[in-house]
Every structure is written in structure tokens, then in C-alpha cells.
């Protein structure tokens, strides 16, 4: 019994020590926030270490990464579809069809502070087409993983840094296509030039000098018919206000110049116009048209300013709720839907457009949303109707309603109904009215 006494004393001492240490430890226990910070720092350190290990394994080769996506559409209904050919272009007017809207393959390479990207696009919108969509070389001052570089200089063919929808990654957008105003002012989204971009904390910025003829433009896509460049920029913020709420907003601007094409010289021609509709050539109906010297091309100024914002909220049990919107005022910038040519029109053409969208994830497997967009290509248009000249609006708006089933955010099957209102038709009284343009489209999409 006595031989156990020291042990008992020792045991009691140990318990007392443990209790005191425990109390001390309790008094110095870190809170959850500091642990989370420590964890994030450790993760960042691990990521940097992984990156450095990878770079050391292949010191002579850049890291190469491939990505892409495919969007295959079935247009089930299109109000303007007709089994005829366009008399001007000879292209089919039928729009009720299957098509590959976008099939993209992007290769990105990074090596130390250098980077390059090359993106190919294939589609069958107007017949099978494969083209270079993006190709850029960049140098960056990195700020760390999952953060934009402090500064990055890019040269090549890249997305125009204006607003929200132009820069948005196509598979991320729930409506199948961009809004009318964005498609009209920035067709094709990609342009050639040089850009400085980056971010610091929530601040984001981009400034670019571009050719001003985007890839989807109707005049000189991918070329630059005048020496002056378009200057485009965006400054904004992108921040998580609280962990479940993210706000991104910005102001964009563009200033540049477009080109009114001149006309080539013409030769003398003899014409016959059957003025009295009798089918017989008479001397008074024959007209000699003297040839004309070429008319020169002329540059004109164009500009735009835009505001954009999006708010994302992680709704518990449901998923992300996103509200987004953008408004753009522009002058002489329409390059697709109603190409602006102030020299031909004799006045500036003022464009205005906006959109507002909302989408909600319904668990991981579904997403619904709608977007309303409005675009007026010419705020000052007018026409002769009856005895007087009346204002004419060519404005159009579209309400897009979308429902999608998704799997692992990789595959998505969407169905969208677009209800379009425009001023392209005429009533019995000659007033502008909507010309049927409603569409119902199903899209299958996979990102890889």
C-alpha cells in the first residue's frame, strides 16, 4: 500500500497540471475566424508550393491547360421562319433547325510571369465555320492564386473590356444569347489590340486600345480600315460583402472612330426605264448616266458609356440567386443590327439599351431565370406618314424566360422562350407594329 503512495501523489500532481494547462489552453484558444484565416493562408501556401513544384519538374516547358464547351441548339419555333431563300443573299430563311451555336476549344499556357491563350470557335449558324476567336500573349504581375494580377499587359485578340455581358464566359450565362444592345454594339465580343488590366483588393480595371472592328462586325471584321484606334476601358469593384453575398459593378467607356466607306468610280452606262409601262423602248425612256469619280471614305467619331452591376446571394438550400443589369448609351456605335453610318445619315445616331435579369438555382440540379432587354438603335429617327413627318421608333425589346436542368455545373439542358417586340411590321393603318420574332429554343451544353 505504502509503495503506491508516491504514485498516487504523482497522479494527483499530473491531474492538477493537466487541469491548469487545460485552463490555460482554454484561456488562449483561437476563435473560428482566426482558424479560418490560418487555414486559408496554409491552403494558399500549399497551392504556391504545388505550383513551384510543377514548375521545377518541367523548367523548360510552360504549363498547358485545355478547356472548352459545346452548345448545341434545337430551334423548335421561330415566328420569322419561312421555307424560302433570302432574295438578297440566297441564304435560307428557315430558322426552325438544329445548329451548333458555339463549339470552343481554348488552350492556355503559362510560364513564370508570361501567359498565352489561343481559342478556336466552330459553329453552323451560317453554315459550318471554324475560325480563330481569340489569341493573346500576356505578361503579369501576379497577386496570388484566385486573385487577379495586380497588372497584366495583353496583346492580341481578346474580349473587349466593356460592361458585364461582353466579358462574361458564355456557359455562365443562363439566357442563351447576349442582350440585343450588347450584340449590336459589341458583335463577336473579341477585338484586336493591346490591354492593361488587373485588380487590387476589390478594385478591377482594364484599359485597351483596339482596332475597333470586332469579330462579328458587318463591315470589316478583324481588320482596321482607319489608323485611329478605339480606346475602351472599365473600372469597377468585385467583392464579397459578406461570405454569402457578392457584388460586382463597374463603369465602362469607349471612344473611337468608324469608317464610312467611299464608292469606287463608275463607268458611263445607258439605262432604259419603262416610264409608261408599255414594254416598248422609247427615246424619252433611254437615259445616259455619265460615269462618276470615286468618292472618298470618311472617318467618324463614336463613343459609349455603360454602367453594369450584378449581385449574387447564396440562398441556403436553394443555391445562387443572381440579379444583374447593364445600361449603355452610345453614339454611332451599332456595328451589327442597324449599322451606324452618320455620314450617310447626315446626323449622329444615338443608341440606348439596357437589360435586367434574375436567375435562381433550384438545388444543384436546376436553374430558372428571366431577362428583359431593350434596345433603341436610333433615338432621333422619323418617317413620312400621310401628311406629316412623325417620329419613328425602331426600338425592340425581348423578354427571355429560361429553365434549365444541370448536372455538376458541367452539363446543362436549357429551354428558352423569347418574346420579342419590335417596330418592323406595319398595321393596316401603316403604323409600326411588331413583326413576329418569337422563338422557342432548346440548348444542350457541356463544359470541359
Amino acid at each position, binding site marked *: 500500500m505504502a509503495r503506491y503512495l508516491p504514485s498516487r501523489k504523482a497522479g494527483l500532481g499530473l491531474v492538477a497540471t493537466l487541469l491548469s494547462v487545460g485552463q490555460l489552453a482554454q484561456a488562449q484558444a483561437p476563435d473560428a475566424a482566426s482558424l479560418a484565416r490560418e487555414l486559408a493562408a496554409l491552403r494558399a501556401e500549399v497551392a504556391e508550393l504545388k505550383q513551384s513544384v510543377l514548375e521545377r519538374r518541367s523548367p523548360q516547358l510552360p504549363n498547358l491547360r485545355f478547356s472548352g464547351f459545346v452548345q448545341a441548339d434545337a430551334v423548335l419555333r421561330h415566328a420569322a421562319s419561312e421555307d424560302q431563300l433570302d432574295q438578297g443573299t440566297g441564304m435560307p430563311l428557315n430558322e426552325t433547325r438544329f445548329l451548333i451555336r458555339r463549339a470552343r476549344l481554348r488552350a492556355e499556357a503559362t510560364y513564370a510571369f508570361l501567359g498565352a491563350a489561343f481559342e478556336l470557335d466552330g459553329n453552323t449558324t451560317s453554315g459550318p465555320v471554324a475560325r480563330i476567336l481569340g489569341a493573346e500573349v500576356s505578361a503579369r504581375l501576379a497577386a496570388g492564386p484566385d486573385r487577379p494580377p495586380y497588372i497584366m499587359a495583353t496583346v492580341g485578340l481578346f474580349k473587349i473590356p466593356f460592361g458585364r455581358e461582353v466579358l462574361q464566359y458564355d456557359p455562365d450565362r443562363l439566357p442563351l444569347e447576349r442582350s440585343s444592345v450588347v450584340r449590336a454594339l459589341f458583335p463577336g465580343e473579341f477585338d484586336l489590340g493591346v490591354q492593361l488590366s488587373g485588380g487590387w483588393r476589390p478594385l478591377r480595371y482594364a484599359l485597351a486600345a483596339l482596332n475597333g472592328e470586332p469579330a462579328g462586325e458587318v463591315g470589316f471584321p478583324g481588320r482596321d480600315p482607319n489608323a485611329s484606334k478605339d480606346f475602351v476601358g472599365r473600372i469597377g469593384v468585385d467583392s464579397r460583402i459578406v461570405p454569402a453575398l457578392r457584388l460586382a459593378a463597374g463603369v465602362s467607356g469607349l471612344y473611337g472612330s468608324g469608317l464610312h466607306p467611299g464608292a469606287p468610280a463608275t463607268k458611263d452606262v445607258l439605262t432604259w426605264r419603262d416610264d409608261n409601262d408599255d414594254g416598248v423602248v422609247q427615246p424619252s425612256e433611254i437615259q445616259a448616266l455619265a460615269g462618276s469619280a470615286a468618292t472618298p471614305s470618311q472617318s467618324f467619331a463614336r463613343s459609349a458609356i455603360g454602367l453594369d452591376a450584378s449581385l449574387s446571394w447564396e440562398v441556403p438550400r436553394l443555391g445562387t440567386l443572381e440579379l444583374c443589369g447593364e445600361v449603355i448609351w452610345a453614339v454611332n456605335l451599332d456595328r451589327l443590327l442597324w449599322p451606324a453610318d452618320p455620314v450617310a445619315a447626315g446626323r449622329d445616331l444615338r443608341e440606348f439599351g439596357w437589360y435586367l435579369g434574375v436567375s435562381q438555382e433550384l438545388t444543384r440540379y436546376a436553374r430558372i431565370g428571366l431577362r428583359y432587354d431593350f434596345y433603341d438603335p436610333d433615338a432621333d429617327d422619323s418617317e413620312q406618314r400621310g*401628311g406629316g413627318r412623325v417620329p419613328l421608333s425602331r426600338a425592340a425589346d425581348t423578354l427571355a424566360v429560361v429553365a434549365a436542368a444541370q448536372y455538376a455545373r458541367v452539363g446543362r439542358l436549357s429551354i428558352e422562350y423569347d418574346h420579342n417586340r419590335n417596330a418592323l411590321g406595319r398595321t393596316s393603318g401603316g403604323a409600326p407594329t411588331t413583326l*413576329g420574332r418569337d422563338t422557342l429554343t432548346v440548348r444542350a451544353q457541356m463544359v470541359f
Partner: protein
Amino acid sequence: MWGRLRHLTLLGCLLSGCAADSQTGLPALLRVVGAQFVPGEPVASPDGPAVVGLSVLQNSAAAGELGKPIAGTLAEGATAAALFLEGDLGHWIVVAGPPDVTAPRLPTFAASLDFSPSLPAGDRRLRVQAGDAQDRLGPAASQTLAILPRDQPAGQLVVSLAWEREADLDLHVEDPTGVVIWSRQKSGYTAPPPGTPPDPEAVKRAGRLDFDSNAACVIDGRRRENIYWTAAPPSGRYRVRVDTFSLCREAAAYWTVEVRAAGQLVGHASGQSGPESTRGTHGPDAGVLAFELGLP
């Protein structure tokens, strides 16, 4: 009941867009450049404005004719004119223009009419109605148009070749005397031997080719050739051939041959020209035999 109907109408509007028809109107017999096509016949309203005057230069039009001018004056308050060719698929809305100086209160309209190549010959009424800002169409003013067959000459015997696609096809007809009428010999008249006085009537009696369409791939859009005899044609056998001179980058061309004697259809043939049809020489005896005809 009315409420349900209204809801159904609203739903239909949402689905259809409550919109003007976006069809081009190409299948219509009458087409109006720059105007809105509306399927169906225009309906007149008793309160609609009237057409004050209508001006069509000629009361006839040929099938396939392009750009026939029409103009008119509308009653005060009219903002548009509806044009309808009776029996057609739909009508066309033309926006009214400014008044003429002679009638400063009356709006006018002007349009350019195109007629379908498939428009059957015969009389057909063209109706014009004025429309106002309330979309009411007034009473119709009409003009009867004599629709003439397309590019078909009158004659005792007419052999016609017509084809689809802009290729260069040639009509060859060998008459009973052995003379071949074609693009290099446009008349069946043969000059008499030296020393014999020419017969002025023989020139008139001979068959002739009216036009060498799409010659050497200079596209004229006509795609029709006729060989015809205005006087009684000689008795005997006639051989009709179709020579495919060039497909002018088209993949194929579909052709039809019609033979009319005294206005009555007496023969018909059709065929297809492919790349192999252009081979060989393109002399008077070239081409495929489309038709053989014996005349008493």
C-alpha cells in the same frame, strides 16, 4: 366565358407575339417592294377612309413582270393603302406619303408591283383600300388588269423551252426542210440560189428564235426561249432538241418544252441537264431530243 376567352387570347398573344406576320410574301402572286405582307383578304370597315383616285399606267401586266408602278390619292386622314390582287394569298400594306400640291389635304401613295412568274393569264382585279390610324380599311377601289402570258409570242406554231436555275440552255428546232433554227441561226429562212429573186414572204413564213437567254452565262433571268412561226408552218416532222451549253456553275437545270399549235398545247416534255449534258460540241445537231412532232 368571356373571361376565359380573354385569357386564351392573351395567352395566344404571348405565344404568337400579337405580331404582324413576318412572312416575306414570296409565294404570293403579287409582291410589293418595301410593303408589309398580311395573309388573307383585306376586310373593309364602313368607317374606313376611301380611295380618291387610282393611277395604273397600263391595264395589263405580264406574269413575271417587275416594277409596275401604281399610285393613288387617299381620303383625308388615311395613313396607308392596302393592295390586294383577287385570288392571292394575302394583301400588302403601303405607308401613305405626303399630299400632292394639287390636293394638299389628301395623302398619296405610290408602290412598285412585282408579279409572280406563275400568275395565270386572264383578267384579274387589283383592289386598293385606304387605311387610317385606327387600322380601319375603307371601301375598295379596283382596277382590272389583263394578265398576259410570260414572254410567249403569238404564232401558228410556238415551241417554248423554259428552265429553272441560271444556266445557259439552247432550244434547237429542226423543221421539215432540214433547217435547224437555234442561237447561231435564228431564222429558218434560207437565201435562194444566186440568180433567183428572193421571196419577201418566205422571210415572214420562216420560223424564228426570239431570244438566246443566258447566252455565254451572261445571266438575264429570262430562262426562256421560243421558236415560232407566225404563218402556217410547213408540213412534216419537227425535231425539238435541248442543248445544255453551260450550267454556269449551277449543279443542274430542270427544263420543260411546250409546243402550241394555233394556241393549243400539242406536246410537252421535260428533263434535267447535269454536268455530263454540257459535253461535246454545241453545233446545230447538239443536245438531247426532247420532242418529235408531225404536222399535217
